[in-house]
């Protein structure tokens, strides 16, 4: 009797323990849908249309991931998360991946046990300047009035940058970006400083957006990318190599319009990408055409960028740092081999 209970107990422990041991990929496959944490609304990155459909750069990354796994970019459930909730949602497993304009920092990895699967967007603090004084560099902003949001790291970065370059400025503290735009239009400040990705959105709120420019300089590092829990290396690799696949696709010239041509290519690096040789999909426990599926769903990195935030979008963010390493930017993905 005792031994029977023991066996039953052991069986119970075993069955409950199994799902816990199963990796994120198994859970995702079992569920039949990827659970993706996104921003609750950030122009170009994550927006919900009136018909309930999610759009944006961060959203598209999760679609690419879903396509790589299920060959269906629509097998994603999006969970809008606030800045304070985002990492807890990842830690308590209510999402599989966080694709929500989050900066890759030391503390978030070493302190919170998360891992960033690469950088999808190199953001940084920039400057929105009314076109009147024809400045082309942040180093020409000496002796200007600068609007900056209170209680942010932006404010400290601003002080550091001006001190380091022996320049002076007059700080105009504002409570919100909207207030900064008003102040700019009323002439209370000449410059508004915030993260560049936000500045492109705010610029559209000016009465005359063309009257202002965003300087190409960034004075802080804000590498944004998808994050996962640090305890599942297989899942981490899958997400990371999906980022790299999108960048490598652009590097190799594989896009939505050249996919069919790529499938027939005789070049080894293209054939490894399409899965025609190498059999690399199996190493991620996916089908061998996983990378092609991702590109078919959202295009290569450049297409994803231009459509959501770049020259083909409302925001018109230039590629800048987010250009391929070979084209003057710093995007560089390790080779798929």
């Amino acid at each position, binding site marked *: 009797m005792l031994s029977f209970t023991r066996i039953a107990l052991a069986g119970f422990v075993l069955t409950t323990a199994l799902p816990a041991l199963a990796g994120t990929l198994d859970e995702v496959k079992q569920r039949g849908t990827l659970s993706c944490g996104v921003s609750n609304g950030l122009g170009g990155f994550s927006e919900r249309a009136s018909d309930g459909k999610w759009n944006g750069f961060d959203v598209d990354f999760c679609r690419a991931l879903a396509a790589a796994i299920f060959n269906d970019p629509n097998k994603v459930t999006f969970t809008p998360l606030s800045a304070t909730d985002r990492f807890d949602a990842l830690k308590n497993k209510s999402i599989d991946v966080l694709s929500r304009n989050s900066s890759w920092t030391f503390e978030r990895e070493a302190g919170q046990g998360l891992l960033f699967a690469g950088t999808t967007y190199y953001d940084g603090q920039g400057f929105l300047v009314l076109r009147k004084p024809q400045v*082309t*560099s942040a180093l020409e902003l000496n002796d200007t009035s600068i609007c900056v949001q209170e209680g942010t790291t932006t404010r400290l970065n601003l002080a550091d940058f001006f001190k380091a370059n022996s320049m002076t400025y007059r700080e105009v503290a504002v409570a919100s970006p909207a207030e900064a735009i008003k102040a700019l239009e009323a002439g209370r400040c000449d410059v508004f400083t915030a993260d560049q990705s936000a500045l492109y959105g705010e610029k559209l709120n000016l009465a005359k957006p063309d009257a202002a420019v965003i300087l*190409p300089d960034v004075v802080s590092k804000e590498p944004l990318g998808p994050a996962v829990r640090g305890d599942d290396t297989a899942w981490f690799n899958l997400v990371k190599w999906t980022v790299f696949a999108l960048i490598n696709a652009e*590097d*190799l*010239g*594989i896009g939505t*319009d*050249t996919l069919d*041509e*790529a499938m027939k*290519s005789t*070049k080894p690096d*293209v054939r490894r990408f399409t899965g025609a040789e190498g059999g690399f999909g199996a190493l991620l426990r996916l089908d061998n055409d996983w990378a092609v599926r991702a590109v078919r769903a959202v295009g290569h990195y450049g297409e994803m960028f231009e459509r959501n935030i770049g*020259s083909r979008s409302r925001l018109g963010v*230039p*590629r*800048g*740092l987010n*250009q391929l390493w070979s*084209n*003057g*930017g*710093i995007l560089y993905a390790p080779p798929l081999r």
Partner: protein
Amino acid sequence: MKTTAASALLLVGLLSPSLVHAQAASAAAQRETMDIGDEPGRISTEEATIKSGPFARQLVFFRSNEPPGTLVIHTSEKFLYLVMPNNRALRYGIGVGREGFTWSGLVKITRKAEWPDWTPPPEMIARQPYLPRFMAGGPGNPMGARAMYLGSTVYRIHGTNQPETIGQSISSGCFRLANGDVIDLYSRAAMGAKVVIRHSAQL
């Protein structure tokens, strides 16, 4: 002129999907569709520049090991970069060679000319026999307002009397800019300047 250029640009934008479609149809049909004549005699003004969109002249972030003053041409993106100090470049939209007429390499600006004459090279005459054998420089000349000769090649960076073709692959291997833009570039690019021509990976 401004509105005509803009509407022509819009028209090109609207047309391009059908062009892409035609491209897929057959190689022969593509040659027909893409072979936009050089239209000698069509007038474009010195002021014609690309005013908006990615092909407008603009200062961009551009990391490069090339010294300032170098011209970097990306044929597949249809951009010409004039490298400037401090990780910057002035970027111009260009028209490039049609398929089979793209090339890459390293050359120098060996000659600069204002309102250049046009003597289509024999190989171009062979392909397009209707072209004039010689045309004096001027507003109706397909060479446009300025030309920068590249090494000892038959290719040049030049203006155009068809600014609406900027952003397309239609030339015989030359790089064309709107007249206002080529005048701007001409004033900045020095004789002997290094010109790097690149195109993206082939499948």
